[in-house]
């Protein structure tokens, strides 16, 4: 590990200002004198860790508030109207007002709800999202921790959100919430597989699971080297965060607010927070893994380039959300299992062959690899899309011929018809 990239600047700043004398705080002038006397390094270490976490979590909360405002402005612009522009400069405080409103609302727990699980679910939902941010390098020296299994950590931690959703749905004691929760779990579990497999190509090129290492290994952004991987990962992360083409857990016309139906006040607020933080988190992962993270021209600090790329990905997600209609549950699962899964396999095979041919590529060879990958990607997307489309049409026809569910009263048994009328 090269020291200057992996050293946590913020942590070191806090720690060295607190602790008396420590080996880690040696500079060219000798020891840095901190606030605490000698022998209290452990306290300084603990406090510095807490402060770092405090700073990052508050940063995320602020970013969520900002992103809610920004998304609402963007929704407005995509629909040819202005977004919120009344409360504060450019409407910036409108999401602050929303947050205050949510906090002061009455907190209702339904009588049929399982109280313990009902209260645990929002916490379970929001924790993994915060944990994503702990391993993402947001610039040189700007991160909480640089795990050497960062990508695996993210993949395993984000799969907890499915558990949170199903707990929330079950604890509500409400059939609509359970429908929504089951849908959510089906989607989350299905899309975890293409999501994880789409990162395999990146790992082959980078040779490391650490996100800092992946950023460092990107001589050109991996979106050029891994177009299929990016395509699959983008769609899969949209599904994982319940964004619009895949947001059938909160399908308004069918399920109301889905598993959020019975949540009110700050519990609802925490779910909302988790959803938006997950959006930011997934765009941060995309930025780090596929868009070369904090790398950019040296004119501006690395944090700026990271933020710029993050915002571009966020805008792309909003754009997709405003443009595309919601898919049915069978279409979503078919896309995952029959479309994206195959694409990731093609990507893995192609990348493996390329990496075997050029184990230590020069710059020119990297560009050749990128070209070959694009040549593989575009036809395979077209072919898989065509196959998927034909199959999809067939299944719809078959479904109409022998409908498994009773649609109208004529298909109900005569004994049931009367009961429907009575109720």
């Amino acid at each position, binding site marked *: 590990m090269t020291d200057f990239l992996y050293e946590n600047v913020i942590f070191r700043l806090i720690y060295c200002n607190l602790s008396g004398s420590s080996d880690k705080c040696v500079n060219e002038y000798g020891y840095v004198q901190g606030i605490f006397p000698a022998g209290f390094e452990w306290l300084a270490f603990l406090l510095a860790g807490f402060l770092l976490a405090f700073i990052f979590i508050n940063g995320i909360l602020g970013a969520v508030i900002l992103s809610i405002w920004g998304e609402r402005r963007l929704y*407005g*612009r*995509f*629909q*040819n*109207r*202005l977004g919120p*522009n*009344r409360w*504060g*400069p*450019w409407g910036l405080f409108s999401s602050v007002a929303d947050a205050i409103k949510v906090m002061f609302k009455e907190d209702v727990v339904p009588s049929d709800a399982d109280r313990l699980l009902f209260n645990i679910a929002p916490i379970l939902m929001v924790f993994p999202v915060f944990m994503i941010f702990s391993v993402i390098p947001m610039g040189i020296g700007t991160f909480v921790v640089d795990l050497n299994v960062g990508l695996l950590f993210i993949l395993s931690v984000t799969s907890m959100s499915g558990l949170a959703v199903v707990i929330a749905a079950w604890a509500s004691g409400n059939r609509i919430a359970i429908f929504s929760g089951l849908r959510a779990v089906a989607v989350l579990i299905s899309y975890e597989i293409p999501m994880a497999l789409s990162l395999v190509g990146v790992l082959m090129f980078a040779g490391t699971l650490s996100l800092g290492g992946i950023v460092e290994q990107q001589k050109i952004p991996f979106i050029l080297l891994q177009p299929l991987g990016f395509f699959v990962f983008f769609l899969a992360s949209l599904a994982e965060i319940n964004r619009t083409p895949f947001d059938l857990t909160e399908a308004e016309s069918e399920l109301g607010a889905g598993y959020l139906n019975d949540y009110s006040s700050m519990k609802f607020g925490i779910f909302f927070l988790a959803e938006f933080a997950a959006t930011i988190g997934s765009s941060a992962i995309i930025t780090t893994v596929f868009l070369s993270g904090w790398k950019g021209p040296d004119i501006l600090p690395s944090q700026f380039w990271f933020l710029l790329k993050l915002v571009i990905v966020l805008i792309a997600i909003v*754009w*997709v959300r*405003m*443009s*595309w209609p919601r898919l049915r549950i069978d279409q979503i699962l078919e896309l995952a299992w029959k479309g994206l899964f195959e694409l990731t396999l093609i990507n893995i095979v192609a990348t493996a062959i390329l990496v075997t041919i050029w184990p230590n590529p020069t710059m020119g060879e990297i560009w050749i690899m990128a070209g070959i990958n694009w040549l593989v990607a575009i036809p395979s*997307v*077209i072919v898989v*899309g*065509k196959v*998927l*489309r034909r199959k999809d049409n067939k299944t719809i026809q078959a479904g109409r011929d022998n409908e498994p569910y009773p649609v109208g009263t004529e298909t109900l048994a005569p004994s049931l018809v009367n009961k429907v009328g009575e109720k």
Partner: protein
Amino acid sequence: MIGLGLLKGLKVTLFNFIRKPVTIQYPNRRVGLFTISAANSTNPFKFFIKQPKTAIKSLLNMATIPVKIPQSSRFRGNEFTWFEDRCTGCASCAKFCPLGIIEIVTQPGGTDGQEGESYAIDVFDIDIGRCMFCGLCVEACPYDALHMGTLFERSGPVRNNLIVTKEELIENQKKPSSWYRPQFEDDSFNPFESEIDNHRQAGRHEKPSDEDMHNDWVNR
């Protein structure tokens, strides 16, 4: 080809994103420094010296300038125009009102411009809180004394404030709507800006002069 429809959808929203928003911000709109200084017909620097508070607000996009909604001159609004000397107190308007919200109390002993003797009007109340602005009262008035108004901003916390009384009707600016009065549209009369002083301008057709009407009445 698959995916082409998705790209088309993206294109539509992208064009919406680039286009100017169609929103009309009423009653005022948020403006920046350039717009507000142009509205005050100065340049930004002079405006900054003149009104620093507003200028700083405008830099944060928090300054507002009022917006008028483009409105048809036939708009039937709530500031009724009523000519007291023209009204005989016949209560045709009250009879024709489908909601029965016009209340008229008269007593004998008044004078009228044309016919000499008439009713004196004590009360002429229009409860516009329940009015649906159909304009039947205006159509029904045989003497062209009542006209629809042009305004609509009369919201308030108390229902009683929505009753237009006789005193208010007298004091009102005479800005009749051009609904049922097509001559206003011919004569470049703008009910939102100019006022009329004579009921003869507001008649529903060319009226003979007072003398002609008197002669007509005598010769009948």
